């Protein structure tokens, strides 16, 4: 199915959960924060939160940066 991931179109496995998406992206779940359609998904709900066709997902993490950079 197609979703919007970090502002870009992306095809991911059908009926994926957030956890499934993070595994698909080879991203460590404990190091990221996830928004599904602008709502933050709590870490303990990653495995039970399903993504639907057309959903908008943001995956963010800590990056280098001191002040405004």
């Amino acid at each position, binding site marked *: 199915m197609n979703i919007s*991931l*970090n*502002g*870009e179109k*992306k095809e991911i496995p059908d009926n994926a959960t957030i956890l499934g998406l993070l595994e698909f*992206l*080879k*991203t460590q779940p404990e*190091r*990221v*924060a*996830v*928004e599904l359609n*602008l709502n*933050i998904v*709590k*870490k303990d709900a990653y495995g039970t939160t399903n993504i639907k066709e057309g959903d908008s997902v*943001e*995956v*963010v*993490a*800590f*990056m*280098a*940066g*001191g*002040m*405004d*950079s």
Partner: protein
Amino acid sequence: MNDDKLVIAGIEFTSRLWVGTGKYKDFEETKKAIEASGTDVVTVSVRRVNIIDKSKENLLDYIDPKKYKILPNTAGCYTAKDAIRTAMLAAEAGITKLVKLEVIGDEKTLFPDNEAMLEATQVLVKEGLIVLPYMSDDPIMARKLVDIGCPAVMPLAAPIGSGLGIRNPYNIKIIMETVKVPVIVDAGVGTASDVAVAMELGCDAVLLNTAIAGAKDPIAMAEAMKHGVIAGRLAYKAGRIPQKLYATASSPLEGMIGS
């Protein structure tokens, strides 16, 4: 200095020098500079994960979150809405509720937008976040931010990355007299003496990034900053002599030959 610990919202900090992780050549240099600075607090930004290039190394592979307190910031946010969203994501990604809140008002100066800061702080404090606000060196703003729940304030010394040092030490002094919470000078320092001046004024800590990362030898500068903070803090606690216009002899006059 071991008994001279900084505590903010119940969190104990061993170092009074806090450093950013931006603008380094690579993660190896970042790691070495941070080690040389002796800090236990590093600031990081919150950004979209690179979903295309997964081979890209992660900062946290170099900066161990067990060893350092990770202080996420909302750098790059120009509206209260963006800053709130970023701060909430940071709190979810991290292990603490600590966030350094920035709401930038202008690209040229990177000065904070005070109204937007207050608005974002109000929301985030209600959400249970520990908000450390990056702010102008304005005592009234400091008071307002503390009144709505900030456990410390972070006034700028000079514009971010300018290296101008403490442009208005009198305002920093007034801020310290106005609020009864830790005052952390954030942004604008250029070299070790600037850091020492901030600490001699009585500031509780200094946060910097460019002054180390942009130095010719960042690792040596990180060490210099460490000593600057220690020297300034010790001098502040020791209590300096008053400044006088005329000389005061330091040798006794008694027993002078020819007297």
